[in-house]
């Protein structure tokens, strides 16, 4: 294969992946950037989420309590919307690395299934926010 190989660990770009093409390199670079950028956003989101879990369990965990907390401040639905978008990017890219490196699966079908999973997370997450804050 001609051209430089581009392999980034943790993004499903093993040295065996046919990523030596210009398009392959560009796609791998985008996956790297998206995985790290979403990780940075999620770092903050998960920190806040972990703190709010302790608070929520202490102050009573019920459907009514969750709904009233989500209505208390419009910043909460906005925060969770950012959280959902970041996780819908991060989780499928992480799974892509796992199915590539552990199962040796890659290609169009894998990417299509993972894109569908991203849509399920995005749709399901935003629907849940609407159900709680709408």
């Amino acid at each position, binding site marked *: 294969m001609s051209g430089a190989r581009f392999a980034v660990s943790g993004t499903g770009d093993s040295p065996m992946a046919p990523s030596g093409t210009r398009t392959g390199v560009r796609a791998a670079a985008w996956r790297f950037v998206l995985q*790290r950028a979403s*990780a940075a956003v999620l770092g903050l989101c998960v920190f806040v*989420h972990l703190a709010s879990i*302790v608070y929520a369990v202490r102050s009573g965990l019920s*459907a009514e309590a969750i709904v009233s907390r989500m209505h208390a401040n419009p910043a909460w639905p906005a925060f969770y919307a950012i959280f959902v978008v970041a996780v819908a990017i991060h*989780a499928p890219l992480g799974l892509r690395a796992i199915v590539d490196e552990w199962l040796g699966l890659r290609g169009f079908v894998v990417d299509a299934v993972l894109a569908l999973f991203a849509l399920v997370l995005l749709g*399901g997450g935003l629907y849940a926010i609407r159900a709680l804050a709408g």
Partner: protein
Amino acid sequence: MHQNDFRARGHAAWWAFLVHRISGLLLALFLPVHFFVLSQALSRPAQLNDFLAWTRAPGVKAAETLLVLALAAHLAGGVRLLLVEFVGWRAEWQKTALALAGAAALAYALLFALNG
């Protein structure tokens, strides 16, 4: 051919990699269920409340604590990875960073298990 031999697997960073990967896998599989349960809050609040009551059963609480541990471990391990990749790698800091990440995750899981 696997690039990891037994010497590589004996290193603390390899265990950190394994924990990061397995916790990420668990969380990814859990998320659709999490979203589905929460989406019932408005349409079927009674069912959500029944579900929340069920999560207080000891076995379910233990599984929930494991999930929370996975989330805390994935966060702590992820912060460590971002620091390694974007701030810099120092050989003498790695074991400290791994120990801190593990301790933070375990401490939070303990807080969750004993909370409420």
